[in-house]
């Protein structure tokens, strides 16, 4: 399904980052994608199951979560963090600011693919 991807702050991710980026709270709050309930139904995605989010800049596996504040069909939201960064736009429009909101993306179910932890993700992306 073609969607518009937004990234941003959630209170859970804010609390998670203060717990420490190595904490479980941070992982659970940032490796997640909030989707409109109708879009979840259309795609046959169950809440809490894994999905693949891909853009022209990359792809990442995150957990699907039902958005509590719909309707926003066609718009999905991933909190700031390394999982979102795997798919955000690098276009800075000559002013230094990458485009982190309003990115064209594709979501699809990936129930058998694992969500990588911060350590695993860094190892895979940067070899360290």
């Amino acid at each position, binding site marked *: 399904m073609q969607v518009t991807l937004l990234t941003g702050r959630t209170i859970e991710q804010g609390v998670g980052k203060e717990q420490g980026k190595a904490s479980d709270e941070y992982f659970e709050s940032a490796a997640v994608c909030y989707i409109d309930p109708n879009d979840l139904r259309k795609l046959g995605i169950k809440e809490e199951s894994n999905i693949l989010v891909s853009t022209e800049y990359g792809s990442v596996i995150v957990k699907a979560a039902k958005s509590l504040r719909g309707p926003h069909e066609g718009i999905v939201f991933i909190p700031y963090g390394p999982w979102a960064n795997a798919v955000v736009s690098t276009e800075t429009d000559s002013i230094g600011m990458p485009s982190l909101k*309003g990115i064209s993306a594709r979501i699809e179910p990936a129930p058998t693919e694992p969500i990588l932890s911060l350590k695993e993700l860094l190892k895979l992306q940067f070899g360290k």
Partner: protein
Amino acid sequence: MVTVKAVVCPVCGCLCDDIELTIEGGCIVKVKNGCAMCETKFLNYCKHRILKPLVRKDGELVKTSFRKALEKAAKILAEADYPLLYGWSSTSCEAMRVGLELAEEVGGVVDNTSTICHGPSALSVQEVGLPSCTLGQVRHRADLIIYWGSNPWSSHPRHIERYTNLSEGRFEESEWKEYLSKVKSSNVKKKVETVLRRVSQRDEASASVSPIREPHLALSKTGRKLVVVDVRKTRTAEIADYFLQVQPNHDYELFEAFRALIRDEELDVEEVAGIPVERLEEIAETMINCNFGTIFFGLGLTMSSGKMRNVEAAIALTRDLNRFTKFMIMPMRGHFNVTGADTVFTWQTGYPYAVDFSLGYPRYNPGETTAVDVLLRKESDAALIVASDPVANFPKKAVEHLVEKPLVVMDPHMNATSQVADVVFPSAFVGIEAAGTAYRMDHVPLPLKKIVSPPKGIMSDEEVLKKILGQVRRIKTQSKAEAV
């Protein structure tokens, strides 16, 4: 047991200064008045700490002495042709001052986190100015608050309570009571909707039951009004008197539509950015008729299509509104001292962020000297990251180059950037274990307190930076002497 009052919270740009902490046995055991993020920081700052300097050896980070880490870090920076010095927004102004001196010494590019938050806003302000005020003025006088592309309920949890609609001002009252009744009616509505949904599932004929409509949120009410403009319904939008759901990447059109409407021009379209023009007319009228309006804008404007032009349109709208009434505008700054970073950078170099010292004097050209662009063009040959986590916040492509070159990190926590660094310095938490100065989002400087002592051997960012600067100068003097 000791209670420390009037503590300034080092989490977000609100810098709430009414926090009360209870200290027992050298540890913070209780937090009063703080939000969820504040409480988490004060009660958990000692977890996931780095307690010893680390260096990368055979692909793994291993503990080392401070002297060895210092020598290695100073060598990396002194030998680099174009190092990137990035971060700064979560440390004290005093540490930033040393950092800028270091940047000049090593001839690198120094940038702060504004570059990926309100950098575009700084560019707009340089173009058209910023009619603004302090948060105290807003608290006491503002009767119309507009949050645009910002969700303070999540990013600045006490902003509404301390400075806007839920605060008790001298001339404007708090809207707590109305908010509570709204929450109650919303709960009732949700229950009714659940029942209706169940009924419609059982009996197809009743599936046509018309859904409960949103109650018309009156802008004609007395007291403070809250308008939220965002691309999705956020927690903040739920308590607003009026919520405008703008299509992603269409904020610019909406600002220009408002500018036309307040000039009493007619729009020959039925909707703008997905919102019917008649709704926009209602808001435009509310803007003109208020006594003191304020727009707080967030990254919804700077990170989406239009970027600095969105902010420019927002400021132009504010300027236009001042022909009718008093109207202010303010960016919602994220990190607790990102405003301080812009301020210190400006008074030291003349520019708020993205400053390049490679020619021996400060140069500023966002798009060229901004951290993400430097990394995407693969120009930097080393990096020093202070109190920030670009590996968790920059696009992957930019991080790839950052990680490829020697990387020195200074942070109290083991964050994503520390994990991929070559040298890691542990540091004390500013505002908890070290004192300093920070600037609130409205440019009011506030003192950060030292509440407890840092773990043994851990220094503040300022002290570590001074030592690195001293060592870099020694290396440079030595290599000059050898060259002669």
